[in-house]
């Protein structure tokens, strides 16, 4: 007899498994399952046909691939979970029975989770691991500045802090920092590690409350994994630059440099076909790496020392700080060789031998990859807008005039804006005067005005024709692509609308500014 093919015995019905069943197969609690998924990087799958997978029911459930679960089943860490459960039970018993000796012995033999094999499995190469470093760094930097909590232990916080300092130190030694952005959420960094772009956020160094609507256990699990990952990455990176790991760090003082060997060069780029572009990029990167070379900075007490030291040292500058903030300042505030003094307050006793600047100057310089004029950044001055270095405007997007100006300066037309403005103003004034004179001269007389010839705007006409041609071509788009086309068109329209709106707002603002500037002059 032929074997009958039954329903739900193959295909989607067997390829997927619901979370509840997965937990049953693995014989874990939901919490442990969650932990396992986080550590192993297993995520749920969305089946195409919910009804087929649900064997008739279209109830929305979390589904995993059965193969994923089978893959989890052979994970040795599950055994550790069970050991830990037993350990906790024994420890509780010992504590309840008031047997401190047993408890101590048990504590010493607490099962330890080894995550190295998981890291190796998830990231087969170092580059893979570096590619996935964004979330890892964000979490580690967040935990490094968190206060102690019931769910977050001091050791974890200190460990995070150590690892992040190590990483910053590495970046300083290879001069890997590329972009800095002071956002409202925190400070965004972009760095280049082994040819990979790594981006992360560091929260502002201010006190904040622990939010209550957050499950710290989940975050803690992530951090547990990320700490291990970052530790191994740090080790490998340090070995790559032939530095000793762990480096000597004093946790109180922000990253110190002991450059043992300077930046390594990736040979992959050398082979790239687009050589000119690469060359230009490489030059600009080199410029950035030696941006602050020869400059000596001093950081005021009110400025966040750690981030500032990181910025300056990753661009080759020398930096010192107030001994009150941290110990071991390389030089004093009175040092004669200091060129830039970073302050973030309105008034300060100023010395003539140095520039007093606001912290934004450092970030803007790094993003522009050149030293910007300091005059806009003096203490108490109205700062130019701080632009995001992460925005790459494509055609039709709005580009803020400040960015245009910066880019224009970069190209080489370094002409004093003020001079231009002045000359423009003068020209305008002249025009106005002339007009006024004319007005005085003009006396209304009876006259015949010659009729103007209604000239057809050739450009407009051509555009109209072109529009019609495109409309006709749109008609001939095959049905398959019509939807995509309309979508793209819609997006295009939206961006133009937004750009237009922003432009209008800017114009309005500039008009207002002009009026405000002129108003006091008239009074005077």
């Amino acid at each position, binding site marked *: 007899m032929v074997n009958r093919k039954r329903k739900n015995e193959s295909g989607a019905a067997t390829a997927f498994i619901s979370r509840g069943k997965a937990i049953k197969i693995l014989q874990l609690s939901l919490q442990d399952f969650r932990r396992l998924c986080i550590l192993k990087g297993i995520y749920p799958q969305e089946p195409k046909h919910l009804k087929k997978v649900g064997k008739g029911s279209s109830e929305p459930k979390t589904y995993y691939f059965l193969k994923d679960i089978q893959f989890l089943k052979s994970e040795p860490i599950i055994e550790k979970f069970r050991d830990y459960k037993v350990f906790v039970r024994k420890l509780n018993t010992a504590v309840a029975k008031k047997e401190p000796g047993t408890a101590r012995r048990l504590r010493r033999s607490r099962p330890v989770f080894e995550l190295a094999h998981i890291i*190796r499995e998830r990231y087969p190469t170092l580059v893979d691991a570096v590619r996935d470093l964004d979330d890892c760094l964000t979490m580690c930097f967040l935990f490094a500045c968190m206060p102690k909590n019931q769910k977050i232990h001091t050791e974890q916080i200190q460990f995070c802090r150590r690892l992040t300092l190590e990483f910053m130190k590495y970046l300083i030694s290879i001069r890997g920092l590329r972009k800095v952005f002071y956002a409202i959420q925190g400070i965004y960094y972009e760095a280049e590690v082994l040819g990979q772009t790594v981006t992360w956020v560091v929260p502002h160094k201010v006190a904040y409350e622990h939010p209550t609507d957050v499950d710290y256990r989940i975050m803690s699990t992530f951090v547990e994994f990320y700490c291990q990952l970052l530790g191994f990455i740090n080790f490998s990176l340090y070995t790559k630059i032939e530095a000793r790991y762990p480096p000597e760090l004093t946790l109180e003082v922000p990253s110190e440099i002991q450059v043992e060997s300077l930046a390594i060069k990736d040979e992959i780029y050398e082979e790239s076909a687009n050589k000119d572009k690469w060359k230009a990029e490489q030059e600009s990167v080199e410029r950035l790496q030696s941006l602050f070379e020869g400059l000596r900075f001093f950081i005021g007490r009110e400025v966040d020392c750690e981030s500032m030291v990181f910025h300056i040292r990753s661009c080759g500058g020398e930096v010192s700080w107030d001994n009150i903030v941290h110990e071991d300042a390389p030089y004093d505030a009175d040092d004669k060789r200091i060129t830039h003094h970073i302050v973030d307050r309105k008034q300060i006793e100023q010395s003539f031998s140095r520039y007093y600047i606001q912290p934004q100057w450092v970030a803007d310089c790094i993003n522009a990859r050149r030293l910007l004029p300091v005059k806009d950044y003096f203490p108490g001055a109205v700062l130019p807008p701080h632009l995001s270095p992460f925005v790459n405007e494509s055609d039709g997007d709005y580009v803020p005039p400040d960015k245009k100006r910066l880019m224009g300066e970069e190209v080489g037309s370094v002409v004093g804006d003020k001079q231009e403005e002045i000359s423009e103003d003068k020209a305008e004034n002249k025009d106005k005067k002339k007009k006024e004179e004319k007005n005085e001269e003009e006396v209304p007389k009876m006259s015949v005005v010659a009729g103007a010839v209604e000239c057809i705007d050739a450009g407009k006409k051509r555009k109209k024709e072109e529009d019609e041609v495109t409309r006709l071509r749109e008609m001939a788009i095959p049905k398959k692509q019509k939807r995509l086309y309309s979508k793209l068109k819609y997006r295009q329209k939206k961006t133009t609308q937004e750009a237009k709106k922003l432009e209008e707002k800017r114009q309005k603002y500039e008009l207002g500014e002009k009026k405000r500037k002129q108003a006091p002059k008239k009074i005077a």
Partner: protein
Amino acid sequence: MASIARKRQREILENKTEIPPTTEDVANVAEPSKGELSTLKKDEYEHDSSDEEDVKNTIGNVPLKWYDEYDHIGYDVQGEKITKPQKGDEIDEFLQKNDNPNYWRTVIDPHTGKPVVLTDEDITLVKNFVEGRFTEPGVDPFPPSIDFFTYEKMIHPVTNHPDQKRSFIPSRLEMKKVGQFVDALKSGRMKMSEPEKDSDEELDEKLPTFYQLWSNEGESSATRRYRQFIPAPKNHLPGHAESYNPPPEYLFDEQEKQEWKAKEPSERRLPFIPKSHSSLREVCGYPRFVNDVFRRCLDLYLLPRQVKMRPNIRAEDLLPKLPQPRDLQPFPTTQAMVYEGHTGPVLCISVEPSGHRLVSGSADNSLRFWDVASGRCLGIVKFSHAVKDVAWNPNAAVSCIAAAVNNEVLVVETNLVYETENEMLHLEAEEDSESSGNSLPVTWTLVKSGSEYENGIRLKITHPKVVHTVVWHKKGDYFAVVMKEAESMPVFIHQLSKRKSQNPLKKPKDPVQTVMFHPTKPYFFVATQRYVKQYDLMKQELMKKLLTNCQWVSSVDIHPGGENLILGSYDKRFCWFDLALSAKPYKMLKHHQKAIRQVCYHKTYPLFASASDDGTVIICHGMVYNDFALNPLIVPVKILRGHKVCDGIGVLDCEFHPKQPWIFSSGADCTVRLFY
């Protein structure tokens, strides 16, 4: 404590009962201790006598209160009742208390109910007991200990036993056990407990040690997991608006602020209102930072991942590469003439084969003849009903038109226009009888005189239902009519010369919309609502059925070459069929916004047009190549606007000029227009 002591006393007293009192009478007991001692010495077997005991208590071990109601307590050997000892009343008690010096040491025996005076010994015992001392006097609680084994080494052994053999040969059991441990240690099953360390050292121990994890990257494929891992998408990177000091145009004005507040948090593009800080020190902490990171964590392990290909293409690249319309000229581009005069929607137009004259039929029950070049109305023919369709005879020699008015088809001689007369239209049909013998529900009437004759009407063909369409054969002798409402025999083919009618379709399944003659071959096309059927008139059979994919076909036209067919439908679709290629449309366009009313080919130029209810006529370039390998090239070249849309109806009919690349169109706005 006191209560406990009392209890103990009672127990003692109970024990005491076993010791028989020496005297029966309480009063007799004057000197208890000495007397007792003397009696003991006198008669040492007195206690052994069981008689006496019997005498004292014969009731056995039962509570005395059972005898409360009686005067006696039990019976003696003789069966006499033993009377209860006299129990005095309260006064006696009081007197006893005062008089009797031994009253304090007198207790009642619970077994016999007799008073017993306690001896001095008893008192001492009780006292010792109460005070927690040994009851027996003279007991030393801590006697000096005499060690059996001394610390000094003696010359003689304590025991005389010889040592056992097993005490001086190594234990095999222990050896086995040690072996097991060693094995376990070697294999790593067991670990030596580490020596305890200081707390600092322990802290250092807790920090995990790292090593070179990715030392041999060549082996990476071995550790790769079975399935390609989809990395999580990167986090959103901040734009200018998220800066602590954004450009002023990114700050919200009042209206934007309100819009932002009115939106749901998930719908907002920015999670906060952009704010400008004059310096970095003014930036306060972002309160949602931890929540954002937590959200990201949840996304990482809870959300399913999918690889989605984002089209990396510009919208302009999707536009098909077509030749420029100006390279495909000539085609009509501008409106040249408007033929005004009708008072109702112009339902149909037809152009004279030479292209000098134009006839239009309207809903105002009239037919108008126009001079194409000047736009002058040359003549009007009035009817009682709206003119549904009009068609000019393609044979220039027979200058007449066929007009569908109500259920009649009228053949109008166009001498109005040319001042010539056709003999054919005046002759009586010879085979009149034959045609009547066919018993078709069609009657031919020759108009010979009267006002109708004056108007030029020469023939009248009456049909059972309202006639909607009239189509001439190319030679100009045959013409076909369609009655959309007729269920049976909706199509007739009339022969003008012989005044004969034929009915090709008896009872089609679908209602017929329109019909068409093949330009060169004896084929006949019938368009029903959904299909177009091609019949061979010679063989009288169905050749092909075209699947239009439309819901309601409105009009059909055939390419002069006869190999291609276009079709318009009321559901906005326009189809081009290559008859040699397939029964399905070669190309389908949806270029009109509303229903298509009419489609037509140009006779000489590679042009075709479609007229729609949206008030436009779209001209397309439709090149058909002689080479069969090349597919027809279809390019929309011009949208002609001019007709106004009245009550949702725009252009009703369109037709190309037979020689020039011009097009005539008629619309619901009572005009006929010429574009060139």
